[in-house]
C-alpha cells in the first residue's frame, strides 16, 4: 500500500510541477463543447436537447487526449520496468497511476461541466445529475483507457490506435451517462442509469487493473 501512495504522490507532484496537462485537457473539453453551438446553430431548443450528449462526447475525447501519456513516458525512460519488478503488486500500482490520471484530468472536467451546461441552455434540473453521472463515469473511462494505453506502448501511430481500441469500449458509459442526463431533463427517473454507471465503475475497478497489468508485463518482457 505504501508504494502505491508514494507512486500516487509522485504522479500528482509531476502533474503539478508541469502544470499544463490539466489545463490543456479542460481547455480542449470547453472548446469542443463551444464548437457545437457554432456548428448546429444557436437555437436554444436544439442545444438543450443534445446538450447532455455533447458534454459526454467531449468528455470522452478529452479523456482520450491525455491517455496515451499515461504509461508512455515511464516506458520510454525505463521506470515502467522498475514498477513491474517492484515488490508491490503491479495491479495496485496501475490503480495508483489511474487514480492520479483521474484526479488531474477527470475531476477538472466535472468541475467545469455545470458552466458548459449553462452555455448549452440545459435546464438547471439536469446539472446535479450531469455532475453525478460524470463523477461515476469518468473514473471508468480512465480505467478502460489504461488498458488501451498499456496495449499500445511502443506501437506505430499509438495515439490513433488507442482511440480505435478504447472508444468502442467507452460506449456503455456514454449510453448510460447520457440517458441519466436525458431522464433528469424529461422528469423521468434518473436513478437506474446512475446505478448502472456505478456498476460499470465497480466492474472496471475489478477487471481493468488486471488486464492493464498483463498488457504492461508483456510490453516490458
Amino acid at each position, binding site marked *: 500500500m505504501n508504494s502505491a501512495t508514494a507512486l500516487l504522490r509522485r504522479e500528482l507532484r509531476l502533474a503539478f510541477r508541469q502544470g499544463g496537462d490539466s489545463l490543456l485537457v479542460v481547455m480542449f473539453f470547453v472548446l469542443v463543447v463551444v464548437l457545437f453551438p457554432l456548428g448546429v446553430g444557436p437555437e436554444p431548443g436544439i442545444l438543450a436537447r443534445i446538450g447532455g450528449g455533447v458534454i459526454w462526447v467531449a468528455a470522452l475525447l478529452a479523456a482520450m487526449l491525455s491517455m496515451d501519456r499515461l504509461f508512455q513516458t515511464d516506458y520510454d525512460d525505463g521506470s515502467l520496468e522498475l514498477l513491474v519488478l517492484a515488490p508491490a*503488486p503491479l*495491479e495496485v500500482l496501475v490503480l495508483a497511476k489511474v487514480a492520479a490520471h483521474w484526479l488531474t484530468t477527470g475531476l477538472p472536467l466535472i468541475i467545469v461541466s455545470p458552466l458548459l451546461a449553462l452555455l448549452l441552455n440545459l435546464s438547471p434540473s439536469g446539472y446535479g445529475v450531469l455532475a453525478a453521472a460524470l463523477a461515476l463515469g469518468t473514473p471508468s473511462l480512465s480505467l478502460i483507457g489504461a488498458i488501451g494505453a498499456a496495449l499500445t506502448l511502443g506501437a506505430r501511430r499509438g495515439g490513433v490506435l488507442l482511440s480505435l481500441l478504447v472508444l468502442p469500449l467507452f460506449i456503455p458509459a456514454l449510453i448510460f451517462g447520457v440517458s441519466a442526463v436525458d431522464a433528469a431533463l424529461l422528469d423521468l427517473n434518473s436513478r437506474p442509469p446512475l446505478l448502472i454507471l456505478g456498476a460499470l465503475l465497480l466492474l472496471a475497478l475489478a477487471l481493468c487493473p488486471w488486464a492493464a497489468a498483463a498488457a504492461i508485463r508483456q510490453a516490458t518482457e
Partner: protein
Amino acid sequence: MKRKHQRMSLLGLAALAIAGAAALILTAFEDNIVFFHSPTDLVTKEFSPTQRLRVGGLVEQGSVQKQGDGVTVRFVVTDTAESVPILFKGILPDLFREGQGIVAEGTFRNGVFQASEVLAKHDETYMPREVADAIKATGQWKGDE
C-alpha cells in the same frame, strides 16, 4: 504481507467489487427503466407540447384510417386503460397491423400524438401462413391477433 497473500486479498477485493456491481444492476432493473411512456402517462401527466416523447402500446382494433391526403395515417394506441390517437405521415413498417405492439416517437399536443417515427416490434415466432391459419382454426392460438 507475502506476495501470495497480497494476490489473494486483491482477488477477494475484485470479487467483492463484481458482487457489488451485480447488486447495483439488479436494483437498477427493479426501478423499471423507462424507454417509452404508456398512453395512461400521456393522458394523466403534464407534458410540454414541444417536448419529444416516445409512446408505446397496442394498436387498437379497427382504428387505422388513411387521411384525406393519402399519406397521413391516423390510428389509436392503447394500454387497455387509456388510449391516445396518433397521426403519422410516412411509410409504416410491414409488421404494423392492428393488435400489434408499436413504439412511436414525436410530440403530444392538444390530445393528439404527432409521430415522426413509428417502429413495430416483432416476436420470436416464425411459421408458415398455412400453419398459423390451421392453429387459429383449432382455436389454440395464443398470439396477438
